[in-house]
């Protein structure tokens, strides 16, 4: 009987190894280990055994059963794993097909650049000021030390609504408006973005364009502070290795005045087509606020100093993105706008 049991065990093990599916395995379990299975059938014959043989055979029978059950569990687990694998394999998709098209719009590149500029100056403690786009001659010119018939008015060809009302040619009037509101309090630290208008229209000029003005007024604000502020701005805007260069220049409302160049963003200063092989790109005008401008705005110019700067956002956007025609920025071709 012991032999029969061992034989049965061998036979069952063999079948289990051959089983190709969980269903087959279950059939084998029922056939050998079920209530009406072969092992039970053999054990039913135990009655014919002697009393001393019975426990020994019983022990063998239990051993065989335990071994088979263990084998069954192992085999069942591996078959389950197999089934799972097959299922996952059959569920595969082409992950290289295009994804569902979401709604994707975009911010105009000029405003994207403006937001970037604003963030840099917000981080330096500047607030953002705004002013009217249609200005008076006084704020656009006279208060900025540009009396009527001043030759420097030729620098800005102006659109007029009437003799005294015009489309502002620069964001600088916001300087005076802000100082008038603030004086005699100190400090004033603002940037003023906005649209400005000049009578020009070609590949590098647009009759409407965007400027950002900056103004810092306090006791003991120096030209060196202007340099440091704009050098910081240039590094933030164009990358940490950007070098700035200050060239003497002239604006009626600043003295001393400076044009600011940055090392060419394309070639890093070696010289290329973009920088006309000079290694430098002119990006903004700046200077120390002219004493007359401080005085008309309500500050004592002996005590209080300040710096101001102004830059064209178009120029900066064009440099940043490598755009070669300013008109593209105002044509609003969706194929252009999608690129930003």
């Amino acid at each position, binding site marked *: 009987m012991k032999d029969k049991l061992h034989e049965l065990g061998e036979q069952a093990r063999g079948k289990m190894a051959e089983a190709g599916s969980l269903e087959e395995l279950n059939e084998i379990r029922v056939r050998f280990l079920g209530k009406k299975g072969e092992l039970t059938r053999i054990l039913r014959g135990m009655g014919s055994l002697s009393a001393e043989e019975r426990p020994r055979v019983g022990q063998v029978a239990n051993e065989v059963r335990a071994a088979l059950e263990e084998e069954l569990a192992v085999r069942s687990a591996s078959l389950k794993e197999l089934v799972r694998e097959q299922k996952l394999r059959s569920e595969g998709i082409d992950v290289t097909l295009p994804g569902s098209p979401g*709604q994707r719009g975009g911010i105009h590149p000029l405003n994207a650049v403006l937001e970037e500029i604003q963030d840099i100056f917000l981080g330096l403690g500047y*607030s953002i000021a705004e002013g009217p*786009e249609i200005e008076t001659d006084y704020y656009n010119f006279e208060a900025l030390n540009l009396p009527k018939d001043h030759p420097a008015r030729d620098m800005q060809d102006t659109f007029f609504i009437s003799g005294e009302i015009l489309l502002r040619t620069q964001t600088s009037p916001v300087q005076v408006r802000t100082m008038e509101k603030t004086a005699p309090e100190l400090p004033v630290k603002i940037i003023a973005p906005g649209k400005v208008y000049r009578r020009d229209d070609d590949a590098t000029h647009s*009759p409407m364009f965007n400027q950002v003005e900056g103004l810092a007024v306090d006791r003991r604000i120096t030209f*060196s502070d202007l340099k440091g502020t704009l050098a910081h701005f240039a590094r933030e805007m164009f990358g940490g290795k950007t070098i700035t260069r200050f060239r*003497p*220049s002239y604006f009626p409302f600043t003295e001393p005045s400076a044009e600011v160049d940055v090392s060419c963003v394309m070639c890093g200063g070696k010289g290329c087509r973009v920088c006309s092989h000079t290694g430098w790109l002119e990006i903004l005008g700046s200077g120390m606020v002219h004493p007359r401008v401080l005085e008309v705005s309500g500050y004592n110019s002996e005590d209080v100093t300040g710096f101001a700067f102004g830059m064209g956002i178009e120029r900066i956007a064009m440099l940043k993105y490598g755009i070669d025609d300013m008109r593209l920025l105002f044509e609003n*071709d969706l194929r252009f706008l999608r690129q930003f």
Partner: protein
Amino acid sequence: MKVSYKWLQEFVNIDISPRELADRLTLAGITVEGVKETGEGVSKVITGQIDSISRHPNADKLVVTSVNIGTEKLQIVTAATNVREGDIIPVAVEGAKLASGLAIKRAKLRGVESRGMMCSGQELGIDPKTMSAEQASGIMILPPGARIGEDAKEILGLDDYILELDLTPNRGDCLSIIGVAREVAALLGKPFRLPQPSFGELDEKTEGQVKVDILDRDLCRRFVGRLIKNVRIGSSPLWMQQRLRAAGMRPINNIVDVTNYVMLELGQPMHAFDYNLLQDGHIIVRRVREGEKIITLDGAARDLTPGMLAITDPSGPIAIAGVMGGQSTEVTDKTESILLESAFFNPVSVRRTSKALGLRSEASLRFEKGIDIGGCARAADRAAQLIVEMGSGEASAGRVDRTSETITERVVQFRPSRASYVLGVDIPGETARDILTSLQFKVQDANGDLLVTIPTHRVDVSLEVDLIEEVARMYGYDKAPETLPFGKSTGGMKTIEQAYTTRVRSQLAASGLFEVMTYSFVHPRVFDLMNLPAGSPYRNTLNIQNPLSEEHSVMRTMLLPCLMEVLVRNYNRRVQNGAVFEMGRVFVTRGLDTQPEEKTILAAAAMGCAPGSWNLAPAAFDYYYLKGVLENLFSALRTAPVTFRPESADPSFHPGRTAVLEADGVRLGILGELHPDVLEKYELPVKVTAFELDFNQLLALSGQPADFIPLPKYPGIERDLAVLVKKDIPAEGIFAAIREAGGKLLSDVSLFDIYSGEQVPDGMQSMAFSLKFQAVDRTLTDAEAVEMTNAIAGALAGKFGAELRS
């Protein structure tokens, strides 16, 4: 201003190359835009004299010449018609190169050997605009006596470099060679040599023969006259001609050329009158009187207006002061005596006059920036000297010099401590003193500060801060350190408008719209295109007096036409699907002489559909798309509830597909499909949906507090309800009725289907709602949910005659 490198060297020794000089000047604030080599690329061009000219055996239009170039005689075949035997001309010999890059080789022309080419001015790189028509069309003929066998570039003064300056308007003094030379001297630390004209004079005096009266001394602060007798009109020497050409001026004759030459050299505009044509030798400088006219040198008859300053003689105006001379006293071939004028005219007056007449000259350009009042006499002498030296005339003794004042120089204090306060860098007083002295300022010490005398040619310097700039720019801006302001700290702030602008922009971009930026000025026609009636307030525009074109001539009062233009442009470029938005100002007039109200408008327009794909049908950019965009925006901005009221009276919009947006009884804006008439006028064959909102109204509604509602602890129950209702019942009313009937326990209701067609009677539609019931304190039972659903259905039946659909 174009400046000759060689001419500069007459006043200062320059020991660096023209290009290095250009860089140094640029970094000192005198921007040099470019450096040009005159006669660039020209080599082996030699002066030669034509010995003989004979007919070409095989060609009627060619001649065979023999040209003596000193070392040999060359046979040259030419088609030139302006040369004669004895003429001295530039000859490009074998191996020569011309400005165009042309290389000269030995050649046979119609069987006759030619060993070179006679050159025109243009072939030597001379700008044809600076040559007379006669010169420009033929071979360049040099004056008799020019040396033969020499390098023609040298003889013609073409071995030079021209610095092209882009001067700022304050530096009128640098519209002259000596002005630039002063800067160069200061930069290089070299002495500056101011020319001191000396020449022989006749015994007879200018004073007495010329009478000058200045009647309007406010407009003419100085008038210097010099009389030149025995004038022989001819052409000026080559070197002078070349210098004028290099500066972009065309040589005319020896007298005119001298006046121009002195203007370029010293910055003093000059004029020469034919003395014999001057009535009584009497100059009267006065304001124009009513009705006076003049024919100017350019041949134009001009009506003058009172207030303009004129040079007159007893017969009337003979020149417009500082702008242009008159024909009646013009220097001609017959002129025997001239009166040279060297004056100071009021800059504003000259500027106004030249603007009013549309006449800008080299002279007016200088006068309006302010010339050196102290230099008038020197300029008159310099001109006389040149004329005498050239043998073109003889100078009467002395000058007439009328001035309304004693010419004084301003004295300005310079405090090194103040310079440091402004610049943030300590420049020693000694250094400042040296810099100012090198720039020709006279400097005196005064207890550590400096008293600086400003020379009359520096009209741009009048304040201490001007001197600080002078010192800083010569000291070098690069020597100032880079620091940041210190002192009271400030928090960088956006205003609420700005903060919301950023949020609205991001929200709309995330909803699939592209931001655009359009011009604030439009064509007046756009109001017709938008279908607006004659009396529409949008037509009340602010107009630009001097627009670039009608296209951009009125300030916009609405954004939609700008967006329409964007859609049309894209459509015509075959980009036919898209949604765009813009935030920008419109201008509401308050009268011509006041600033208008500037209102910020948020507008959007969309055509076609969103991109579809292999797994997704494209969604139309229609009314419901933009409405969804707005609902999301309102939700993101936490606005007060906004209602969409049907609107059928707006002429720009489709009467059945438009809503006015309102909140708290205030109109926020409009949303709708554009009227088919508008699309037709724009010739756009697709539908467009658009909205325009008043940004400040939107702002006022935004930022409602976010009140926390605890999350439900008990599960809710969802039920669907489908009803048949008449199509013309607005959904808004049905929603309201459902909410009312559902009461507190109805936590959410949404519409998930609308259907009409088969099995739905005509004029009716099936609306399927998803209802969610929820109690805060217990789990609802199915029976309760059924009961409430039935109550809702009952309410809809009662209010709208809705039939329950099973």
